[in-house]
């Protein structure tokens, strides 16, 4: 698969997440709150062209718990 076709997804490190709720506040299409107020990734993987915008959202996590990773898709 070429880099242009790669899809990206957010990944939350649940060990680091402390439930600030910035992710689902800023990007409700990509995150939601679980019953405890901790973030959870929702939505479909995004085009590689969105990387910069995704990194910007990830950088808003006070705990640095969010990363942008290449989505593992079924062949």
């Amino acid at each position, binding site marked *: 698969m070429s880099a242009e076709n790669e899809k990206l997804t957010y990944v939350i490190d649940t060990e680091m997440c402390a*439930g*600030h*709720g910035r992710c689902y*506040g800023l990007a409700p299409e990509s995150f939601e*709150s679980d*019953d405890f*107020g901790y973030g959870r990734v929702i939505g479909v993987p995004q085009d590689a062209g969105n990387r910069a915008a995704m990194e910007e959202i990830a950088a*808003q996590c*006070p705990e640095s718990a969010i990363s942008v990773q290449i989505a593992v898709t079924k062949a």
Partner: protein
Amino acid sequence: MTAAGDSPGAGSGPGAVVDLDALKRERAVEYNPFLAVNLPDNLDRMAGLRAVSPMTYSTVGGSSFWVATGYDEVVSVLRNNNKGFVSYPNNPFGAPTDGTQAANKKLIPIDIDGPEHRAYRKLLEPVFAPKEMQALEPQIRKLANDLIDNWIEDGAVDFVPGFAFPFSATTVIVLMGWPLEDADMMNGWVRTLQHGVKGGDQEETVKAMVAAGQAMRDYMSGMIAERKTRPADDFTTMLMNIELDGRKLTDDELLDMFLLLMLAGLDTVQSVLAQVFQYLGEHQDQWDEMFAEPETLDLAVEEFLRWTAPAPPTRNVTAEYMMVGDVPVPAGERVHCVIGAANRDPKYYQNPDDVDFHRQAKPHLAFGLGPHRCIGLHLARLEVKIAFQELRARMPRFSLDQSHEPVGHLGFAWGVEDVFLNFPPGQRQAKQAG
């Protein structure tokens, strides 16, 4: 090693042997974290300290502690809570020893650490989750409008006692599911507990404080007793039902928790609102900007949280030592984390003293970080946003009354008093009774 910050650099830094006493002498300051001082002046002073070092060492009144004023340093302390740091005593001067304020009594969950703390957080977090807080919105809006009704016809308000304080103090009533009609009574008790008796001597003040504290505990005990006979679908009942290690909380523990919930949400939200409305009284263009585009309001809430950051926590080293910046802070010493200064660290915030709703910057630390991050942050954001919206609807134009000088203070929550606002009078909204 237990390094929290940088890893040992080659030839220098924390890996090298550090003469701690020399460091303390070099970076000695006298910072009294309980001073009555205007907040902008104190933040200027913090910027000065940070320029010397983001870790200075204060000796004041026989007490000594590190003062962390840099973003990275504060982050490295808070993120390692329960991992080399503990929160008790959350006081730059150490645990109270005078016996008056429940010396050595630890409040759940703010003063406990480790697995016990995690267990309590797990029980409390679902009740503080965003969707639970959203359900309180209509009542919090009503609370705001009832308060505005008290002065909107006057064209002038002493904003802290008129809105910031009672709004923050009585939100707990909504949260706990107690009758809204009791809000005024609750305000009276909390005001006495915080400020004593105006013009009274110390004996009168102490007497009034003890009486107010007792009245509040009696009131809360009454609520507990009532829920025992008639459980309700509310926060009070939920707290009464939580079980840890196979037992429920005792009435005494419940009272402490109620009190903590109230006080933690009071000084902080009150301070945010007071600081913001003092500022907006002289920046009406930004008051307009907050509402010009629908997405700006949430950004404004976050920027004002960064800018006001009222609560500076103190953490205590339990590991052999913890690296904070370039300082190996040994076991038993304390670090006072000046979040207001970290939130204005020029390393990450351009023109840090400016209020800019569209800044691309690091996340602010107003709610703390890590295991002890503010559990009430969803409620706090909601309160601040509702206050902005309802005050905008009822008081679209206002100015700071220049004949009064707002007076600031430090402490467990930094705050400001005497924020007098003038505005074109509006109409009461609530229907007159009878």
